[in-house]
Protein backbone atom coordinates (compact mmCIF):
# COMPACT_ATOMS: atom_id res chain seq x y z
CA UNK A 1 0.00 0.00 0.00
CA UNK A 2 2.68 2.39 1.09
CA UNK A 3 5.03 1.49 -1.71
CA UNK A 4 2.19 1.89 -4.15
CA UNK A 5 1.68 5.42 -2.91
CA UNK A 6 5.36 6.10 -3.33
CA UNK A 7 5.22 4.90 -6.88
CA UNK A 8 2.34 7.20 -7.57
CA UNK A 9 4.58 10.16 -6.92
CA UNK A 10 6.16 11.11 -10.18
CA UNK A 11 9.60 9.61 -10.53
CA UNK A 12 11.18 12.94 -11.20
CA UNK A 13 9.94 14.28 -7.89
CA UNK A 14 12.14 11.86 -6.03
CA UNK A 15 15.34 13.11 -7.55
CA UNK A 16 16.01 16.84 -7.24
CA UNK A 17 18.98 16.63 -9.56
CA UNK A 18 16.80 15.13 -12.26
CA UNK A 19 14.33 18.01 -12.01
CA UNK A 20 17.06 20.59 -12.02
CA UNK A 21 18.76 18.82 -14.90
CA UNK A 22 15.58 18.87 -16.97
CA UNK A 23 14.88 22.47 -16.02
CA UNK A 24 18.45 23.39 -16.85
CA UNK A 25 18.26 21.60 -20.17
CA UNK A 26 15.18 23.54 -21.21
CA UNK A 27 16.98 26.83 -20.49
CA UNK A 28 20.13 25.55 -22.17
CA UNK A 29 18.21 24.67 -25.31
CA UNK A 30 17.22 28.28 -25.78
CA UNK A 31 20.83 29.39 -25.56
CA UNK A 32 22.43 29.70 -29.00
CA UNK A 33 26.00 29.96 -27.71
CA UNK A 34 25.54 26.86 -25.64
CA UNK A 35 24.11 24.91 -28.55
CA UNK A 36 26.99 25.86 -30.86
CA UNK A 37 29.45 24.96 -28.13
CA UNK A 38 27.82 21.62 -27.56
CA UNK A 39 27.76 20.74 -31.26
CA UNK A 40 31.43 21.67 -31.63
CA UNK A 41 32.30 19.60 -28.59
CA UNK A 42 30.44 16.60 -29.94
CA UNK A 43 32.42 16.94 -33.18
CA UNK A 44 35.68 17.04 -31.25
CA UNK A 45 34.63 14.08 -29.15
CA UNK A 46 33.90 12.13 -32.34
CA UNK A 47 37.32 13.12 -33.65
CA UNK A 48 38.92 11.83 -30.48
CA UNK A 49 37.02 8.55 -30.82
CA UNK A 50 37.94 8.27 -34.52
CA UNK A 51 41.62 8.67 -33.71
CA UNK A 52 41.79 4.90 -33.27
CA UNK A 53 40.64 4.20 -36.82
CA UNK A 54 43.52 5.31 -39.12
CA UNK A 55 46.31 3.26 -37.44
CA UNK A 56 43.95 0.28 -37.54
CA UNK A 57 43.41 0.69 -41.30
CA UNK A 58 47.08 0.91 -42.07
CA UNK A 59 50.11 1.13 -39.73
CA UNK A 60 51.49 3.99 -41.83
CA UNK A 61 48.67 6.16 -40.45
CA UNK A 62 50.06 5.79 -36.94
CA UNK A 63 50.27 9.44 -35.85
CA UNK A 64 53.61 9.17 -34.09
CA UNK A 65 55.59 6.38 -35.69
CA UNK A 66 53.78 5.62 -38.95
CA UNK A 67 55.66 6.91 -41.98
CA UNK A 68 54.43 6.60 -45.54
CA UNK A 69 57.14 4.45 -47.23
CA UNK A 70 56.78 6.43 -50.48
CA UNK A 71 56.88 9.94 -49.00
CA UNK A 72 59.83 11.50 -47.19
CA UNK A 73 58.88 15.15 -47.19
CA UNK A 74 56.00 17.48 -46.58
CA UNK A 75 53.24 16.92 -49.17
CA UNK A 76 49.93 18.71 -49.74
CA UNK A 77 46.56 16.95 -49.30
CA UNK A 78 45.90 13.94 -51.50
CA UNK A 79 43.48 11.02 -51.59
CA UNK A 80 45.96 8.90 -49.69
CA UNK A 81 46.57 11.60 -47.07
CA UNK A 82 43.47 13.82 -46.79
CA UNK A 83 45.32 16.61 -45.03
CA UNK A 84 48.75 15.89 -46.45
CA UNK A 85 51.86 14.68 -44.63
CA UNK A 86 54.42 16.32 -42.41
CA UNK A 87 58.17 16.68 -43.01
CA UNK A 88 58.87 12.98 -42.59
CA UNK A 89 55.78 11.60 -44.26
CA UNK A 90 53.45 11.15 -41.28
CA UNK A 91 49.73 11.58 -41.89
CA UNK A 92 48.47 14.96 -40.65
CA UNK A 93 44.82 13.92 -40.35
CA UNK A 94 45.62 11.06 -38.02
CA UNK A 95 47.83 13.39 -35.99
CA UNK A 96 44.96 15.86 -35.77
CA UNK A 97 42.60 13.14 -34.54
CA UNK A 98 45.10 11.93 -31.96
CA UNK A 99 45.55 15.56 -30.90
CA UNK A 100 41.84 15.79 -30.10
CA UNK A 101 42.20 12.80 -27.81
CA UNK A 102 45.14 14.40 -26.01
CA UNK A 103 43.32 17.71 -25.70
CA UNK A 104 40.34 16.06 -24.03
CA UNK A 105 42.61 14.02 -21.81
CA UNK A 106 44.68 16.98 -20.70
CA UNK A 107 41.78 19.39 -20.42
CA UNK A 108 39.38 17.18 -18.54
CA UNK A 109 41.85 15.51 -16.20
CA UNK A 110 43.56 18.78 -15.27
CA UNK A 111 40.17 20.44 -14.78
CA UNK A 112 38.83 17.62 -12.63
CA UNK A 113 41.95 17.59 -10.50
CA UNK A 114 42.06 21.34 -10.00
CA UNK A 115 38.35 21.53 -9.23
CA UNK A 116 38.52 18.65 -6.74
CA UNK A 117 41.49 20.33 -5.10
CA UNK A 118 39.86 23.76 -5.21
CA UNK A 119 36.55 22.52 -3.79
CA UNK A 120 38.11 20.62 -0.92
CA UNK A 121 40.49 23.43 -0.01
CA UNK A 122 37.81 26.09 -0.40
CA UNK A 123 35.32 24.16 1.75
CA UNK A 124 37.94 23.47 4.41
CA UNK A 125 38.96 27.14 4.53
CA UNK A 126 35.39 28.39 4.58
CA UNK A 127 34.17 25.91 7.14
CA UNK A 128 37.08 25.92 9.57
CA UNK A 129 37.68 29.66 9.37
CA UNK A 130 40.20 31.38 11.63
CA UNK A 131 43.85 30.63 11.01
CA UNK A 132 43.25 27.65 8.73
CA UNK A 133 41.28 29.96 6.48
CA UNK A 134 43.98 32.63 6.57
CA UNK A 135 46.72 30.10 5.89
CA UNK A 136 44.98 28.41 2.96
CA UNK A 137 43.84 31.65 1.38
CA UNK A 138 47.30 33.27 1.59
CA UNK A 139 48.67 30.12 -0.03
CA UNK A 140 46.03 30.48 -2.72
CA UNK A 141 47.00 34.12 -3.23
CA UNK A 142 50.63 33.16 -3.59
CA UNK A 143 49.92 30.51 -6.18
CA UNK A 144 47.43 32.71 -7.99
CA UNK A 145 50.01 35.39 -8.74
CA UNK A 146 52.51 32.89 -10.13
CA UNK A 147 52.29 32.58 -13.91
CA UNK A 148 51.63 28.90 -14.60
CA UNK A 149 53.40 28.86 -17.92
CA UNK A 150 56.60 30.35 -16.54
CA UNK A 151 56.71 27.93 -13.63
CA UNK A 152 56.24 24.94 -15.91
CA UNK A 153 58.98 26.25 -18.20
CA UNK A 154 61.32 26.60 -15.24
CA UNK A 155 60.45 23.15 -13.96
CA UNK A 156 61.04 21.52 -17.30
CA UNK A 157 64.34 23.41 -17.61
CA UNK A 158 65.37 21.98 -14.25
CA UNK A 159 64.03 18.44 -14.58
CA UNK A 160 64.37 17.96 -18.32
CA UNK A 161 61.46 16.69 -20.43
CA UNK A 162 58.19 16.48 -18.57
CA UNK A 163 55.71 13.72 -19.33
CA UNK A 164 52.17 14.67 -20.28
CA UNK A 165 50.86 13.57 -16.85
CA UNK A 166 53.40 15.69 -15.02
CA UNK A 167 52.23 18.64 -17.08
CA UNK A 168 48.60 17.87 -16.24
CA UNK A 169 49.49 17.63 -12.57
CA UNK A 170 51.33 20.94 -12.58
CA UNK A 171 48.46 22.69 -14.37
CA UNK A 172 46.06 21.29 -11.78
CA UNK A 173 48.29 22.39 -8.91
CA UNK A 174 48.44 25.92 -10.24
CA UNK A 175 44.79 26.30 -11.18
CA UNK A 176 42.93 25.51 -7.97
CA UNK A 177 43.14 28.89 -6.17
CA UNK A 178 40.46 30.59 -8.29
CA UNK A 179 38.03 27.74 -7.66
CA UNK A 180 38.79 27.58 -3.96
CA UNK A 181 38.14 31.29 -3.51
CA UNK A 182 34.67 31.04 -4.99
CA UNK A 183 33.85 27.83 -3.13
CA UNK A 184 35.11 29.34 0.12
CA UNK A 185 32.78 32.31 -0.33
CA UNK A 186 29.85 30.04 -1.03
CA UNK A 187 30.71 27.89 2.01
CA UNK A 188 30.95 30.95 4.23
CA UNK A 189 27.49 32.10 3.25
CA UNK A 190 26.02 28.58 3.53
CA UNK A 191 27.58 28.14 6.96
CA UNK A 192 25.46 31.01 8.27
CA UNK A 193 22.21 29.64 6.89
CA UNK A 194 19.77 28.42 9.53
CA UNK A 195 19.54 24.92 8.06
CA UNK A 196 23.16 24.35 9.04
CA UNK A 197 22.38 25.56 12.54
CA UNK A 198 19.34 23.30 12.62
CA UNK A 199 21.59 20.36 11.75
CA UNK A 200 23.97 21.39 14.54
CA UNK A 201 21.13 21.54 17.04
CA UNK A 202 20.08 18.06 15.91
CA UNK A 203 23.59 16.92 16.84
CA UNK A 204 25.17 16.56 13.39
CA UNK A 205 28.93 16.12 13.28
CA UNK A 206 31.19 18.43 11.29
CA UNK A 207 31.69 15.61 8.81
CA UNK A 208 27.96 15.32 8.30
CA UNK A 209 27.45 19.07 7.98
CA UNK A 210 30.21 19.37 5.39
CA UNK A 211 29.31 16.40 3.22
CA UNK A 212 25.53 16.18 3.61
CA UNK A 213 24.57 19.83 3.94
CA UNK A 214 27.23 22.04 2.39
CA UNK A 215 28.70 19.95 -0.42
CA UNK A 216 25.48 19.36 -2.42
CA UNK A 217 24.92 23.11 -2.37
CA UNK A 218 28.35 24.04 -3.77
CA UNK A 219 28.65 21.29 -6.39
CA UNK A 220 26.73 23.09 -9.19
CA UNK A 221 29.21 25.94 -8.92
CA UNK A 222 32.11 23.50 -9.02
CA UNK A 223 30.79 21.94 -12.21
CA UNK A 224 30.53 25.35 -13.79
CA UNK A 225 34.15 26.01 -12.99
CA UNK A 226 35.20 22.74 -14.47
CA UNK A 227 34.31 23.88 -18.00
CA UNK A 228 36.36 27.06 -17.67
CA UNK A 229 39.30 25.14 -16.24
CA UNK A 230 39.27 22.77 -19.21
CA UNK A 231 39.84 25.72 -21.53
CA UNK A 232 42.77 27.08 -19.60
CA UNK A 233 44.39 23.65 -19.27
CA UNK A 234 44.22 23.01 -23.02
CA UNK A 235 45.72 26.40 -23.83
CA UNK A 236 48.52 25.99 -21.31
CA UNK A 237 49.41 22.56 -22.66
CA UNK A 238 49.39 23.81 -26.26
CA UNK A 239 51.57 26.78 -25.40
CA UNK A 240 54.05 24.56 -23.61
CA UNK A 241 54.21 22.12 -26.48
CA UNK A 242 54.62 24.89 -29.02
CA UNK A 243 57.52 26.32 -27.03
CA UNK A 244 59.15 22.91 -27.15
CA UNK A 245 58.55 21.80 -23.58
CA UNK A 246 55.79 19.34 -24.31
CA UNK A 247 55.92 15.59 -23.94
CA UNK A 248 57.80 14.36 -27.03
CA UNK A 249 56.01 11.02 -26.80
CA UNK A 250 52.55 12.47 -27.49
CA UNK A 251 50.96 14.05 -30.51
CA UNK A 252 49.15 17.11 -29.27
CA UNK A 253 48.03 20.04 -31.39
CA UNK A 254 50.69 22.16 -29.72
CA UNK A 255 53.32 19.60 -30.71
CA UNK A 256 52.11 19.69 -34.31
CA UNK A 257 52.47 23.47 -34.35
CA UNK A 258 55.93 23.15 -32.93
CA UNK A 259 56.92 20.70 -35.68
CA UNK A 260 55.59 23.09 -38.32
CA UNK A 261 57.58 25.94 -36.88
CA UNK A 262 60.77 24.01 -36.15
CA UNK A 263 61.00 22.49 -39.63
CA UNK A 264 60.44 25.89 -41.23
CA UNK A 265 57.10 25.07 -42.88
CA UNK A 266 55.32 27.95 -41.16
CA UNK A 267 54.41 29.74 -44.41
CA UNK A 268 55.10 26.95 -46.88
CA UNK A 269 52.48 24.44 -45.72
CA UNK A 270 49.19 26.06 -44.65
CA UNK A 271 47.53 22.61 -44.81
CA UNK A 272 49.83 21.62 -41.96
CA UNK A 273 49.74 24.86 -39.95
CA UNK A 274 46.04 25.69 -40.07
CA UNK A 275 44.23 22.53 -38.86
CA UNK A 276 45.85 22.29 -35.40
CA UNK A 277 45.62 26.06 -34.95
CA UNK A 278 41.94 26.13 -35.84
CA UNK A 279 41.25 23.10 -33.66
CA UNK A 280 42.86 24.69 -30.58
CA UNK A 281 40.85 27.86 -31.07
CA UNK A 282 37.59 26.02 -31.64
CA UNK A 283 37.87 23.56 -28.76
CA UNK A 284 38.65 26.30 -26.25
CA UNK A 285 35.88 28.39 -27.73
CA UNK A 286 33.41 25.55 -27.45
CA UNK A 287 34.22 24.85 -23.80
CA UNK A 288 34.00 28.56 -23.12
CA UNK A 289 30.61 28.86 -24.81
CA UNK A 290 29.39 25.81 -22.92
CA UNK A 291 30.56 27.38 -19.67
CA UNK A 292 28.80 30.63 -20.47
CA UNK A 293 25.58 28.78 -21.24
CA UNK A 294 25.86 26.78 -18.03
CA UNK A 295 26.47 29.99 -16.17
CA UNK A 296 23.16 31.25 -17.44
CA UNK A 297 21.47 27.99 -16.52
CA UNK A 298 22.87 27.91 -13.00
CA UNK A 299 22.62 31.57 -12.11
CA UNK A 300 18.84 32.06 -12.07
CA UNK A 301 18.50 28.77 -10.30
CA UNK A 302 20.79 29.91 -7.53
CA UNK A 303 18.97 33.21 -7.38
CA UNK A 304 15.64 31.48 -7.15
CA UNK A 305 16.87 29.42 -4.25
CA UNK A 306 17.81 32.48 -2.27
CA UNK A 307 14.51 34.08 -2.93
CA UNK A 308 11.52 32.44 -1.38
CA UNK A 309 9.45 31.03 -4.14
Amino acid at each position, binding site marked *: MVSKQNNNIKRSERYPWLISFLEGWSIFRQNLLGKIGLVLLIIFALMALCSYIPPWINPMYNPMTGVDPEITSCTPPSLRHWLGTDFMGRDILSQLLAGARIAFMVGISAAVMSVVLGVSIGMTAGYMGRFVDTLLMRLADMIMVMPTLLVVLLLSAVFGQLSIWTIVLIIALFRWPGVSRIIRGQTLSLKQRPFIEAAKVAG*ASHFRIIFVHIMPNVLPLAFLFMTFRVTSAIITEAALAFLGFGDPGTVSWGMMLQWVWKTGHMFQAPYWLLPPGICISLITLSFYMLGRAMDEVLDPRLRREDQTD
Partner: protein
Amino acid sequence: MHKRDESVLEIRDVSKIYKTRGAFFGSSGKDVTALYRISLDIFKGEIFGLVGESGSGKTTMGRLIVGLEDVNSGEIVLDGREIVGLRGRAQKEFRRKVQMIFQDPYQSLNPQRSIYDTVSEPLKIHGIGDASTRKDLVRETLKSVGLSPPDDFFFKYPHRLSGGQRQRVAIARAMILNPEFVISDEPTSMLDASISAQIFNILLELRNKLGVTQLFITHSLAAARYLCDRVAVIYRGNLMEVGPAEEVIRNPKHPYTQALLDAVPKFGHDRDAKRYGTLLAKDRDVEEDAGCVFFPRCAAAHEDRCGRKQPGLSQLGDGHFVACFRLEAMHEA
Protein backbone atom coordinates in the same frame (compact mmCIF):
# COMPACT_ATOMS: atom_id res chain seq x y z
CA MET B 1 -0.81 22.43 35.14
CA HIS B 2 2.75 22.50 36.39
CA LYS B 3 4.39 22.09 39.71
CA ARG B 4 6.11 25.24 40.82
CA ASP B 5 9.11 23.59 42.40
CA GLU B 6 10.15 21.47 39.44
CA SER B 7 12.26 23.64 37.21
CA VAL B 8 13.62 22.01 34.06
CA LEU B 9 15.89 24.82 33.04
CA GLU B 10 17.67 27.22 35.32
CA ILE B 11 19.43 30.24 33.92
CA ARG B 12 21.76 31.82 36.42
CA ASP B 13 23.32 35.23 35.95
CA VAL B 14 23.93 34.69 32.24
CA SER B 15 25.65 37.47 30.32
CA LYS B 16 26.58 37.61 26.68
CA ILE B 17 28.82 40.31 25.32
CA TYR B 18 29.73 40.60 21.66
CA LYS B 19 33.14 42.02 21.09
CA THR B 20 33.27 44.11 17.95
CA ARG B 21 36.60 43.61 16.30
CA GLY B 22 38.63 46.51 15.05
CA ALA B 23 39.90 46.54 11.53
CA PHE B 24 43.39 45.23 12.25
CA PHE B 25 44.52 44.65 15.78
CA GLY B 26 42.53 43.16 18.61
CA SER B 27 39.32 44.63 19.88
CA SER B 28 39.19 48.34 19.43
CA GLY B 29 35.48 48.84 18.97
CA LYS B 30 32.72 49.08 21.55
CA ASP B 31 31.47 45.91 23.12
CA VAL B 32 27.81 45.14 22.68
CA THR B 33 26.00 43.67 25.63
CA ALA B 34 23.33 41.34 24.28
CA LEU B 35 22.31 39.92 27.64
CA TYR B 36 23.11 41.29 31.08
CA ARG B 37 22.94 38.98 34.11
CA ILE B 38 19.73 37.19 33.24
CA SER B 39 18.30 34.72 35.73
CA LEU B 40 15.23 32.66 34.94
CA ASP B 41 13.63 29.40 35.93
CA ILE B 42 11.51 27.46 33.52
CA PHE B 43 9.22 24.91 35.08
CA LYS B 44 8.36 21.47 33.83
CA GLY B 45 5.54 21.36 31.31
CA GLU B 46 5.03 25.08 30.93
CA ILE B 47 5.32 27.33 27.92
CA PHE B 48 7.48 30.23 28.89
CA GLY B 49 7.33 33.34 26.75
CA LEU B 50 10.28 35.62 26.22
CA VAL B 51 8.96 38.90 24.87
CA GLY B 52 11.00 41.77 23.56
CA GLU B 53 11.58 44.03 20.61
CA SER B 54 14.14 43.44 17.85
CA GLY B 55 17.66 43.47 19.20
CA SER B 56 16.59 42.94 22.79
CA GLY B 57 18.62 39.75 23.08
CA LYS B 58 15.72 37.33 23.10
CA THR B 59 17.03 35.32 20.16
CA THR B 60 20.50 35.28 21.71
CA MET B 61 18.99 33.72 24.82
CA GLY B 62 17.61 30.86 22.73
CA ARG B 63 20.89 30.36 20.92
CA LEU B 64 22.79 30.25 24.22
CA ILE B 65 20.48 27.58 25.60
CA VAL B 66 20.88 25.26 22.60
CA GLY B 67 24.61 25.89 22.57
CA LEU B 68 24.86 27.63 19.21
CA GLU B 69 26.76 30.34 21.06
CA ASP B 70 28.78 30.35 24.25
CA VAL B 71 27.91 32.37 27.32
CA ASN B 72 30.45 34.85 28.67
CA SER B 73 29.52 34.32 32.28
CA GLY B 74 26.85 32.62 34.31
CA GLU B 75 25.48 29.13 34.00
CA ILE B 76 22.63 27.29 32.36
CA VAL B 77 21.43 24.16 34.09
CA LEU B 78 19.15 21.56 32.49
CA ASP B 79 17.77 18.82 34.74
CA GLY B 80 20.40 19.62 37.32
CA ARG B 81 23.30 19.42 34.85
CA GLU B 82 25.39 22.34 33.75
CA ILE B 83 25.17 22.55 29.96
CA VAL B 84 27.57 25.34 29.12
CA GLY B 85 30.61 24.09 27.25
CA LEU B 86 29.50 20.47 26.84
CA ARG B 87 31.54 18.49 24.35
CA GLY B 88 31.51 15.07 22.72
CA ARG B 89 29.19 12.40 24.09
CA ALA B 90 27.67 14.60 26.79
CA GLN B 91 26.85 17.23 24.18
CA LYS B 92 25.25 14.68 21.89
CA GLU B 93 23.09 13.44 24.73
CA PHE B 94 22.09 17.02 25.50
CA ARG B 95 21.16 17.53 21.84
CA ARG B 96 18.55 14.80 22.19
CA LYS B 97 16.89 16.64 25.02
CA VAL B 98 16.81 20.19 23.68
CA GLN B 99 15.65 21.16 20.21
CA MET B 100 14.96 24.39 18.44
CA ILE B 101 12.43 25.68 15.92
CA PHE B 102 13.84 28.50 13.86
CA GLN B 103 12.31 31.74 12.78
CA ASP B 104 12.47 31.47 9.02
CA PRO B 105 11.09 28.23 7.58
CA TYR B 106 12.39 29.22 4.15
CA GLN B 107 15.95 29.20 5.42
CA SER B 108 15.89 26.47 8.02
CA LEU B 109 15.36 23.55 5.62
CA ASN B 110 18.11 22.38 3.30
CA PRO B 111 16.79 22.91 -0.26
CA GLN B 112 18.67 19.84 -1.50
CA ARG B 113 17.09 17.37 0.92
CA SER B 114 13.67 15.78 0.81
CA ILE B 115 11.23 16.13 3.69
CA TYR B 116 11.88 12.54 4.73
CA ASP B 117 15.63 13.12 4.76
CA THR B 118 15.22 16.28 6.78
CA VAL B 119 12.84 14.90 9.37
CA SER B 120 14.63 11.58 9.78
CA GLU B 121 18.08 13.15 10.03
CA PRO B 122 18.10 13.50 13.84
CA LEU B 123 17.23 9.79 14.10
CA LYS B 124 20.16 8.91 11.86
CA ILE B 125 22.53 11.15 13.78
CA HIS B 126 21.61 9.57 17.09
CA GLY B 127 21.39 6.06 15.66
CA ILE B 128 17.79 5.49 16.66
CA GLY B 129 15.88 2.61 15.11
CA ASP B 130 16.35 0.89 11.76
CA ALA B 131 14.97 1.90 8.38
CA SER B 132 11.41 0.72 8.96
CA THR B 133 11.00 2.01 12.52
CA ARG B 134 12.40 5.35 11.39
CA LYS B 135 9.85 5.46 8.63
CA ASP B 136 7.06 4.79 11.11
CA LEU B 137 8.38 7.45 13.45
CA VAL B 138 8.63 10.03 10.69
CA ARG B 139 5.12 9.16 9.53
CA GLU B 140 3.76 9.53 13.04
CA THR B 141 5.56 12.80 13.66
CA LEU B 142 4.47 14.35 10.37
CA LYS B 143 0.90 13.37 11.19
CA SER B 144 1.17 14.95 14.64
CA VAL B 145 2.16 18.31 13.15
CA GLY B 146 -0.75 18.17 10.73
CA LEU B 147 0.98 17.06 7.54
CA SER B 148 -1.21 14.30 6.22
CA PRO B 149 -1.15 12.01 4.49
CA PRO B 150 2.48 11.92 5.58
CA ASP B 151 3.61 9.62 2.78
CA ASP B 152 2.79 12.32 0.25
CA PHE B 153 5.43 14.52 1.80
CA PHE B 154 8.24 11.98 2.08
CA PHE B 155 9.81 12.70 -1.28
CA LYS B 156 8.84 16.33 -1.65
CA TYR B 157 11.44 19.06 -1.49
CA PRO B 158 11.10 22.25 0.54
CA HIS B 159 10.56 24.45 -2.52
CA ARG B 160 7.29 22.64 -3.23
CA LEU B 161 5.88 23.48 0.21
CA SER B 162 4.16 26.56 1.55
CA GLY B 163 5.60 28.53 4.45
CA GLY B 164 3.19 26.97 6.93
CA GLN B 165 3.98 23.46 5.70
CA ARG B 166 7.68 24.15 5.93
CA GLN B 167 7.36 25.34 9.49
CA ARG B 168 5.42 22.17 10.29
CA VAL B 169 8.29 20.16 8.83
CA ALA B 170 10.70 22.14 11.00
CA ILE B 171 8.57 21.38 14.05
CA ALA B 172 8.48 17.70 13.10
CA ARG B 173 12.27 17.69 12.86
CA ALA B 174 12.51 19.21 16.32
CA MET B 175 9.95 16.81 17.80
CA ILE B 176 11.10 13.51 16.35
CA LEU B 177 13.73 12.99 19.04
CA ASN B 178 11.05 13.42 21.67
CA PRO B 179 12.88 16.24 23.41
CA GLU B 180 12.13 17.50 26.90
CA PHE B 181 12.62 21.09 26.01
CA VAL B 182 11.90 22.97 22.81
CA ILE B 183 12.83 26.54 21.99
CA SER B 184 10.80 28.24 19.30
CA ASP B 185 12.33 31.43 18.03
CA GLU B 186 9.51 33.56 16.60
CA PRO B 187 8.23 30.55 14.65
CA THR B 188 5.40 32.50 13.08
CA SER B 189 6.94 35.85 12.23
CA MET B 190 7.21 34.84 8.57
CA LEU B 191 3.71 33.40 8.32
CA ASP B 192 0.16 34.65 7.82
CA ALA B 193 -1.99 35.24 10.86
CA SER B 194 -4.27 32.26 10.16
CA ILE B 195 -1.32 29.92 9.66
CA SER B 196 0.25 31.33 12.82
CA ALA B 197 -2.79 30.32 14.82
CA GLN B 198 -2.46 26.76 13.49
CA ILE B 199 1.21 26.65 14.45
CA PHE B 200 0.37 27.93 17.94
CA ASN B 201 -2.17 25.18 18.31
CA ILE B 202 0.40 22.57 17.32
CA LEU B 203 2.76 23.92 19.98
CA LEU B 204 -0.02 23.91 22.56
CA GLU B 205 -0.92 20.36 21.66
CA LEU B 206 2.70 19.26 22.06
CA ARG B 207 2.63 20.63 25.56
CA ASN B 208 -0.75 19.19 26.46
CA LYS B 209 -0.22 15.73 24.95
CA LEU B 210 3.49 15.16 25.40
CA GLY B 211 4.25 17.56 28.21
CA VAL B 212 7.07 19.24 26.31
CA THR B 213 8.45 22.25 28.14
CA GLN B 214 8.86 25.18 25.80
CA LEU B 215 10.57 28.51 25.57
CA PHE B 216 8.61 30.67 23.17
CA ILE B 217 10.48 33.69 21.88
CA THR B 218 8.31 36.40 20.41
CA HIS B 219 7.88 40.10 19.93
CA SER B 220 4.13 39.85 20.20
CA LEU B 221 2.41 40.09 23.56
CA ALA B 222 -0.77 38.84 21.96
CA ALA B 223 0.90 35.59 20.91
CA ALA B 224 2.49 35.28 24.34
CA ARG B 225 -0.86 35.72 26.02
CA TYR B 226 -2.48 33.07 23.85
CA LEU B 227 0.25 30.52 24.25
CA CYS B 228 2.25 31.06 27.39
CA ASP B 229 1.83 30.22 31.05
CA ARG B 230 4.43 32.71 32.13
CA VAL B 231 6.25 35.48 30.31
CA ALA B 232 9.40 37.49 30.76
CA VAL B 233 9.76 40.90 29.15
CA ILE B 234 13.27 41.71 28.06
CA TYR B 235 14.65 45.05 26.96
CA ARG B 236 18.20 45.60 25.70
CA GLY B 237 19.44 42.45 27.39
CA ASN B 238 17.85 43.14 30.77
CA LEU B 239 14.80 41.52 32.29
CA MET B 240 12.09 44.08 32.94
CA GLU B 241 9.20 42.02 34.19
CA VAL B 242 8.57 38.33 34.82
CA GLY B 243 5.33 36.75 35.82
CA PRO B 244 2.26 34.71 34.91
CA ALA B 245 1.22 35.68 31.38
CA GLU B 246 -2.32 36.70 32.25
CA GLU B 247 -1.14 38.79 35.19
CA VAL B 248 1.62 40.56 33.29
CA ILE B 249 -0.67 41.51 30.44
CA ARG B 250 -3.76 42.41 32.47
CA ASN B 251 -1.84 44.22 35.12
CA PRO B 252 1.56 45.30 33.77
CA LYS B 253 3.76 47.06 36.28
CA HIS B 254 6.83 47.97 34.34
CA PRO B 255 6.62 51.10 32.16
CA TYR B 256 8.24 49.20 29.29
CA THR B 257 5.65 46.43 29.40
CA GLN B 258 3.00 49.12 29.51
CA ALA B 259 4.54 50.77 26.46
CA LEU B 260 4.52 47.42 24.65
CA LEU B 261 0.85 47.01 25.42
CA ASP B 262 0.15 50.51 24.18
CA ALA B 263 1.75 49.51 20.91
CA VAL B 264 -0.62 46.59 20.35
CA PRO B 265 -3.29 47.75 17.90
CA LYS B 266 -6.75 47.57 19.39
CA PHE B 267 -9.78 47.09 17.22
CA GLY B 268 -13.31 47.79 18.18
CA HIS B 269 -12.43 49.81 21.23
CA ASP B 270 -12.24 53.46 21.89
CA ARG B 271 -8.97 54.77 20.68
CA ASP B 272 -8.10 56.11 24.09
CA ALA B 273 -9.76 53.34 26.01
CA LYS B 274 -6.80 52.59 28.18
CA ARG B 275 -3.36 53.83 27.54
CA TYR B 276 -0.44 53.97 29.85
CA GLY B 277 1.54 56.57 27.93
CA THR B 278 4.85 55.56 29.40
CA LEU B 279 6.91 56.04 26.28
CA LEU B 280 8.64 59.35 25.76
CA ALA B 281 8.01 60.96 22.41
CA LYS B 282 11.64 61.97 22.20
CA ASP B 283 14.47 60.03 23.79
CA ARG B 284 16.26 61.60 26.72
CA ASP B 285 19.91 62.45 26.34
CA VAL B 286 21.85 60.28 28.71
CA GLU B 287 25.55 60.84 29.38
CA GLU B 288 26.33 57.79 31.46
CA ASP B 289 25.14 54.22 31.10
CA ALA B 290 24.82 53.63 34.81
CA GLY B 291 21.07 53.93 35.03
CA CYS B 292 18.09 51.80 34.09
CA VAL B 293 18.30 50.63 30.46
CA PHE B 294 14.81 51.95 29.79
CA PHE B 295 15.55 55.33 31.38
CA PRO B 296 16.17 57.17 28.07
CA ARG B 297 12.68 56.32 26.82
CA CYS B 298 10.73 56.20 30.05
CA ALA B 299 8.16 58.92 30.71
CA ALA B 300 7.59 57.80 34.26
CA ALA B 301 11.24 57.87 35.23
CA HIS B 302 12.50 59.82 38.17
CA GLU B 303 15.48 61.81 36.92
CA ASP B 304 18.07 61.34 39.61
CA ARG B 305 17.13 57.86 40.76
CA CYS B 306 16.54 56.06 37.45
CA GLY B 307 19.45 57.74 35.70
CA ARG B 308 21.99 56.75 38.33
CA LYS B 309 21.38 53.17 39.32
CA GLN B 310 19.98 50.05 37.77
CA PRO B 311 16.93 48.61 39.49
CA GLY B 312 16.96 44.92 40.43
CA LEU B 313 14.05 42.52 40.07
CA SER B 314 11.77 42.69 43.06
CA GLN B 315 8.78 40.51 43.77
CA LEU B 316 5.34 42.02 43.70
CA GLY B 317 2.96 39.18 44.14
CA ASP B 318 2.85 35.49 43.44
CA GLY B 319 5.74 34.98 41.04
CA HIS B 320 5.43 38.46 39.57
CA PHE B 321 8.78 40.27 39.43
CA VAL B 322 9.44 43.78 38.18
CA ALA B 323 12.67 45.72 37.77
CA CYS B 324 11.63 49.31 38.38
CA PHE B 325 12.34 51.86 41.13
CA ARG B 326 8.86 53.27 40.82
CA LEU B 327 7.45 50.00 42.07
CA GLU B 328 9.92 49.76 44.90
CA ALA B 329 8.90 53.21 45.99
CA MET B 330 5.23 52.26 45.75
CA HIS B 331 5.91 49.18 47.79
CA GLU B 332 7.66 51.08 50.50
CA ALA B 333 5.06 53.76 50.69
